[in-house]
C-alpha cells in the first residue's frame, strides 16, 4: 500500500462523513411527527404527563422492577440517588468511569474515593475495596461498564457485610441481564442513562430503578411535586422531571430496543471477527452478563505489538472520518477537581492509568453498518501493517 492512501498522509478519507461513536438510534421522521402531534393534541407538555407515566410502566414491566422513575438526565439522577440514600462522608467508586459519576457525589457534598478496576473486564476490582475502607465510607457506587456488569451480587454482599449502601451507575447497562435477573434489580438504586449516545435514547434522559417503596417515594419527592405520590420528607428537592417530548422518544426507542440490540450485537460480532487476527488490538467483551446491549465497542491497544500508540491510531482514524475516541480519558482521579490531594496516592490506580492510556472506543449503533465496520477494521489493519511509515510521519510532526 502506498503512503498517500492514508487520509492523514494526503489521501481521500475512507468515509465521506464523520462517523460518531455513539448509538444515536432515533425513530423515523413519520413516527417522530406522529408522537409530537399526539403531544400537541393532548396539550400536555411536562409534569409527569401521560407519556412519562406510560414509559415508567413499560420500563417497570420490561426491567422486572417495582419502580422506574424517569428523570431529565442520568447525572441529575445520580445526584437524586445520593440524596435519597442520605449518603454522607465518603463513597467508593471506580475512577475508570465517566466524570459525572464522581460529580454527582461532589454536588451532594460527598467525597469520592477512587478504586481501581480489573485489567481484563475493566469492572470495579472488588478485591481492592478493603484498602479503601474507613469509618467515613457510607456507600459504594458500582459502575456497570461497556454493556457488562461489575459483579453486582458480590458487590451487594460486600456492602451488606459492612453495613454500607450500594447503588449503581448503569448508564451503559440498559437491558443487560445477569443470570436471569435484569440489571435494574441490584443494589438500592440503579441509574440508567437515556442520552442519545445510549441504546435507549430520549435525547437526554434517564431513569432510576428500585424495588424499595420508601426509596422510590423519596426519589419521587426529590424529583418534583408532580408525580410525587406519597408525600415524604426529603432534605431538598431538585428539578429532575422528564418532559413528554423526551418520554415520547424513549417510548419509541424502547419499542425498537430488540432490533437495536440485535444490530449492536451483529456489529460487535463483526468487529470481533475482523479484529481478532490483528496483533496488538484487543476488543473488550462485555463481562459478567448473560445478555448485553453491546452499546460500546472498546479496544485496548498494545503499542509494542501493534506498532502504533493508541493516540496515533486515533489520529489515523479521525483523518479517515472515523471519530474514534479515548474513553475514558483521563481517569476521573486525574481530572480537575479530583486530582488535588492525590499526590500521595499517585500511581495507586495502575490498572486505571494503563487503561486510560490504551483504550479507544469505535463506532457502533445507528451510524454504522457491517460494511462500515469492515472498512474501519481495514483501516486499523493497514495502520498496523504500515506502522513504521505512520510512525515516521508522526515523528516528523512532533507527535
Amino acid at each position: 500500500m502506498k503512503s498517500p492512501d492514508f487520509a492523514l498522509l494526503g489521501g481521500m478519507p475512507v468515509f465521506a462523513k464523520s462517523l460518531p461513536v455513539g448509538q444515536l438510534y432515533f425513530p423515523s421522521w413519520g413516527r417522530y411527527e406522529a408522537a409530537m402531534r399526539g403531544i400537541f393534541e393532548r396539550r400536555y407538555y411536562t409534569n409527569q404527563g401521560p407519556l412519562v407515566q406510560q414509559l415508567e410502566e413499560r420500563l417497570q414491566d420490561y426491567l422486572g422492577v417495582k419502580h422506574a422513575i424517569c428523570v431529565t438526565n442520568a447525572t441529575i439522577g445520580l445526584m437524586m440517588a445520593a440524596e435519597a440514600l442520605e449518603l454522607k462522608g465518603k463513597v467508593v467508586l471506580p475512577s475508570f468511569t465517566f466524570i459525572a459519576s464522581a460529580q454527582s457525589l461532589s454536588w451532594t457534598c460527598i467525597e469520592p474515593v477512587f478504586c481501581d478496576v480489573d485489567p481484563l473486564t475493566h469492572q470495579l476490582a472488588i478485591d481492592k475495596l478493603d484498602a479503601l475502607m474507613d469509618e467515613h465510607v457510607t456507600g459504594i457506587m458500582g459502575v456497570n461498564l461497556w454493556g457488562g456488569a461489575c459483579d453486582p451480587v458480590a458487590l451487594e454482599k460486600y456492602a451488606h457485610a459492612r453495613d454500607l449502601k450500594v447503588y449503581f451507575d448503569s448508564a451503559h447497562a440498559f437491558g443487560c441481564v445477569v443470570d436471569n435477573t435484569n440489571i435494574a434489580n441490584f443494589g438500592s438504586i440503579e441509574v440508567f442513562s437515556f442520552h442519545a449516545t445510549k441504546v435507549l435514547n430520549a435525547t437526554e434522559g434517564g431513569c432510576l430503578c428500585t424495588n424499595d417503596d420508601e426509596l422510590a417515594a423519596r426519589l419521587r419527592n426529590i424529583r418534583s411535586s408532580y408525580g410525587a405520590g406519597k408525600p415524604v420528607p426529603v432534605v431538598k428537592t431538585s428539578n429532575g422531571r422528564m418532559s413528554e417530548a423526551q418520554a415520547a422518544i424513549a417510548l419509541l426507542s424502547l419499542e425498537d430496543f430488540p432490533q437495536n440490540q440485535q444490530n449492536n450485537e451483529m456489529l460487535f460480532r463483526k468487529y470481533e471477527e475482523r479484529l481478532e487476527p490483528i496483533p496488538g488490538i484487543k476488543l473488550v467483551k462485555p463481562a459478567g452478563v448473560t445478555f448485553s446491549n453491546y452499546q460500546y465497542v472498546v479496544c485496548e491497544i498494545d503499542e509494542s505489538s501493534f506498532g502504533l500508540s493508541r493516540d496515533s491510531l486515533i489520529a489515523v482514524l479521525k483523518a479517515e472520518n472515523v471519530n474514534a475516541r479515548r474513553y475514558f480519558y483521563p481517569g476521573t482521579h486525574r481530572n480537575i477537581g479530583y486530582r488535588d490531594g492525590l499526590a500521595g496516592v499517585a500511581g495507586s490506580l495502575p490498572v486505571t492509568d494503563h487503561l486510560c492510556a490504551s483504550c479507544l472506543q469505535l463506532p457502533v449503533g445507528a451510524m454504522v453498518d457491517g460494511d462500515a465496520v469492515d472498512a474501519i477494521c481495514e483501516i486499523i489493519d493497514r495502520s498496523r501493517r504500515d506502522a513504521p511509515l505512520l510512525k515516521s510521519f508522526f515523528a516528523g510532526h512532533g507527535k
Partner: protein
Amino acid sequence: MISEKKQMQDLACFGGGRLFAEPKSTSNLVQPDFDSFMRYSRQFFDRQHYTNNGNLVKLLEKRLAEFHDARFCIACCSGFWGLVLAMSTLALKGKSEIIMPSLTYRRMADIAAWARLKPRFCEVDPNTLAPTRQSVGECINAKTALILGVHPIVNCCDIDGIVSLGKEHSIPVLFDSVESVYESSSNGKVGRFGDAECFSMHASKLLNGFEGGYVTTNNAELAHRLALLRTYGFEGQDNCIIPGGLNAKLNEIHAAMALANLDEMDQQVVKNRQRYRQYQAGLSGMAGIRLLEFDESLGTSYKNIVVELLDVWPLKRDETVTVLNAENILARAYYSPPLHHKEMSYPYIPAKLEMTDYLARRFMLLPCGDFVTCDDIDRIVQIMKFINLHGLGIAHRLAANEVGAS
C-alpha cells in the same frame, strides 16, 4: 351573562356540578404552530444531532440574547439548574449567605442549598410584592455572598436600586426573572441587568420549551463558565477544565419548541392582553378584590393574573381558592406559605417577616394562558361575584363541613 350558580348548593364544593369540564389553570401551556415546530425539528433530525449543544440550542441562545438585549445567553435543561449554576458561580468565595425574598418560588431555598448557600430572607414591598433596595440592604452583612433580586409575578422589582446596592457593597446581583421574560424597565429590557438573570422555559411559563431555562449576562467570563459547567466542565472532547460541572444541557427538541414559541411571542402577548382586559373589565368595581395592574408604560407580557382579596372580601383567601378549585378553576395562593415558614433541613437564617406574612394571606393567581378564553374569564368573574354575594353563607357552610369532616 346569566350566572350559572343560582344558589349556594350549586357550588361544586357543596355538591353542585363543576363550572368547567376541563381544568383552567394558571399555567401558560402555550402552543406554537405545529408545522413551525416540525420545521425546526427537521434541522436536528437531518443532522442526527439530538443534544450536546446542537445547532438549535445555539440558535435559541443567539435569538434570546438578542431578544433580551444581553450579550450572552446560556440555555439549560431547566430554570432550576440554571439558577443553581448561576448562584454557585457568582457567589463570593468564602462567604456563605444569599439574600432572597421569602415571598417567592417555593423551591428557591432548595436551589440555594444545592449551590451551598444559606438563605437570609428579606422583606418585600407591599406595593410591588418585591424586595427593595432598603429591604435587601438591611440583610447585607460580612457573610453575604450574593443578592438574589426576584421579580414578582406582575411587573418588576426595583432593578436600579438593587443593582446599585450590590455595586456599593461589591456583592454580585443575580435576578430571578422567570416571570419577567417580556418585561422592561425604564433602562431597557429585563435580561441585561445585574451580573446575570435567570429564566424558565417550563411549559407553564411565557416561553414554553416543554422544560428548560436559560441565563443571560453581559459578562463574557461568566457566560463561558456557565456553558462549561452545564456540560461537566468540558471544553472539547475529554477536556474537563473546571470543577463543579454537571449535566444541565438542553436537548434539541426542547430548543425547537422554544424557538417556535419565540417566533409567536408577540401574537401571544396580544392574546394575553385581551384576557387581561377581560379580567380588568369584569373585576373593576367589584368590592373586596383588586386586580394587580400591569405597568403598561413599559413592555409587559400581560400573562399572569394576580388579585388581592381585601379586608371586605367575605372569604379568606384559602377558602376562596378551595371554592374555585372545586369548580375546576385552578386558582393558586400567591407564594404561600412563604419560604421562611417552611421546614428546612439545611442551613438558613430564621426570619421574622411581618409584612411577608400579611401579604402571603392576601393574594391569589387566577387562570391565564392558552386554555383560557374570554368567555371562560366571564364565567370566572361571575363566580367571583357569586362568592362575593354569598360569602358569609359559604364561609359558614365551609366551616360546618370542616367540623363535620373532623
